[in-house]
């Protein structure tokens, strides 16, 4: 993952000895930090068996697991909505018609400017007033789809733009209509290239479902609060278990993403295509972030 830097040259024997000393010292510092945290946890009795006992009950485990399923359900629905929305928006922004371009551009700019939490709160209040009586899941999914649709549209647009122009020009020269060139030549390649960035969007969506907590939508984070109000002494433990829940899902997605990147870089090299497209989409995926977000590069 890390490129070998040339910031310093390969160390000679003396420098290596010095580095070894500093390595040990820094390792001690890191271990010391972790130990300090551990001691703090121990002295407040956080490792006590009875504080963890609640999680050994089948009921609690199932309760939290159902919360995880609710999180995944919300994420899946939101992702579906966002991706369905993103494609026409991205194509709209690249359209030859000025009107469509402006409209799609205005939508994307608007929803990128509004924090997701504000949007969720607004949906919870306004949708029932308009006569849409949805379950909590519905409010969350509508807000998430609108918000992440705009963010993902930017990823898709960047993916399309990062494809060498010659591809489309060649298709047009062969006599394809613009929409044929888009459908048969540009999109298949662009979608393939932006797959890693789309997985990052998915990761952001999964994490943002935790905002359903405020509705309240009964997802994983909310259930951890339920557990800790039922058993206040196990609050930190509940938080830890739930964070692990998000962590496992996120780790899986990151793993899939790295696998895709590795696979693609292999095929790109063998077919001799410009590898730049990955860098381009990876960079723009910086836009595609959770409300808590930052680039999931």
């Amino acid at each position, binding site marked *: *993952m*890390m*490129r070998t*830097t*040339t*910031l*310093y*040259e390969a*160390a000679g024997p003396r420098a290596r000895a010095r*580095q070894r000393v500093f*390595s040990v010292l*820094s*390792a001690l*510092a*890191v271990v010391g930090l972790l130990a300090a945290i551990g001691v*703090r*946890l121990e002295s*407040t009795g*956080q490792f006590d068996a009875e504080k963890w006992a609640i999680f050994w009950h089948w009921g609690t485990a199932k309760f939290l697991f159902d919360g995880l399923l609710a999180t995944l359900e919300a994420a899946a629905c939101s992702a579906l909505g966002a991706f369905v929305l993103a494609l026409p928006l991205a194509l709209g922004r690249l359209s030859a018609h000025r009107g469509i371009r402006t409209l799609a551009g205005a939508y994307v700019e608007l929803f990128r*400017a*509004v*924090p*997701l*939490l*504000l949007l969720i*709160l*607004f949906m919870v*209040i*306004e949708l029932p*007033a308009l006569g849409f009586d949805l379950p909590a899941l519905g409010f969350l999914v509508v807000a998430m789809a609108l918000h992440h649709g705009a963010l993902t549209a930017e990823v898709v647009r960047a993916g399309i733009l990062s494809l060498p122009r010659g591809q489309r020009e060649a298709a047009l020269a062969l006599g394809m209509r613009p929409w044929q060139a888009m459908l048969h030549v540009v999109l298949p390649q662009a979608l393939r290239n932006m797959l890693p960035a789309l997985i990052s969007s998915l990761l952001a969506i999964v*994490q*943002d479902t*935790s*905002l359903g*907590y*405020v509705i309240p939508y009964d997802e994983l*984070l909310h259930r*951890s*609060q339920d557990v800790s109000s039922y058993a206040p002494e196990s*609050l*930190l433990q509940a*938080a830890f278990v739930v*964070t692990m829940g*998000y*962590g496992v899902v*996120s*780790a899986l997605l*990151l793993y899939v993403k790295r696998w895709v990147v590795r696979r693609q870089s292999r095929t790109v090299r063998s077919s001799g295509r410009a590898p730049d497209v990955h860098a381009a989409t990876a*960079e723009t995926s*910086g*836009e595609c*972030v*959770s*409300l*808590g*977000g*930052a*680039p*999931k*590069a």
Partner: protein
Amino acid sequence: MESLPSFAWRFIQGMGVTIELSLLSFAMAFVLGVALTVMAVGPLAPLRWFAATYVEIMRMTPLLALLLLFVFGLPKLGFMYSLIASSVLVLGFYTAAWIAEVLRAGVNAVPPGQIEAARSIGMTFTQVLANVVIPQAVRTVIPPLGNLFVIQIKASSIAAAIGVFDITYTAQRINFETAQAVPTFASAMVAYMLLTVPLGMFMRRLEQKMAVAR
């Protein structure tokens, strides 16, 4: 019934809190991010491991989960911070990971040939860093950093979930009092745009100014 100017004044106060949250947390994140970057590109393996693990953990945790852990969990360990301080700390810890990633990419984007050239004419490590790497790295990281700051402004809205009176929570409260959802939330949106849009324009100008032909 309160008058219109008083609502406007409350939104302006909310903007002040949002600015405070995002500026303070971003400053903290920057300092932490620089430290993490130095660890990540440095020669010491334990520190590299620490920086990588830190970034990874932050990437896998939802921000709101972190905030709730901080606000409700830390008192259990005997630490207690005000709601604003907690929000700033959590936003800072969280964004530090992203800043570290951006900075590391910036350092790695400097062509190795330049560093080799600088080393071969006899510059020391610090000279290379100060005269070759950092001036160029700054140019590549300015746009993504600006981007991160805009994101930070929006992300600071999660402080509303614990009742900090930023723009989002102000909107929520005013809506409770008046039940006028559309104008209230539209004003909140305008308030956010008043912060993010000029910033975005400024960043674009800065980008053009600092762009170098490579």
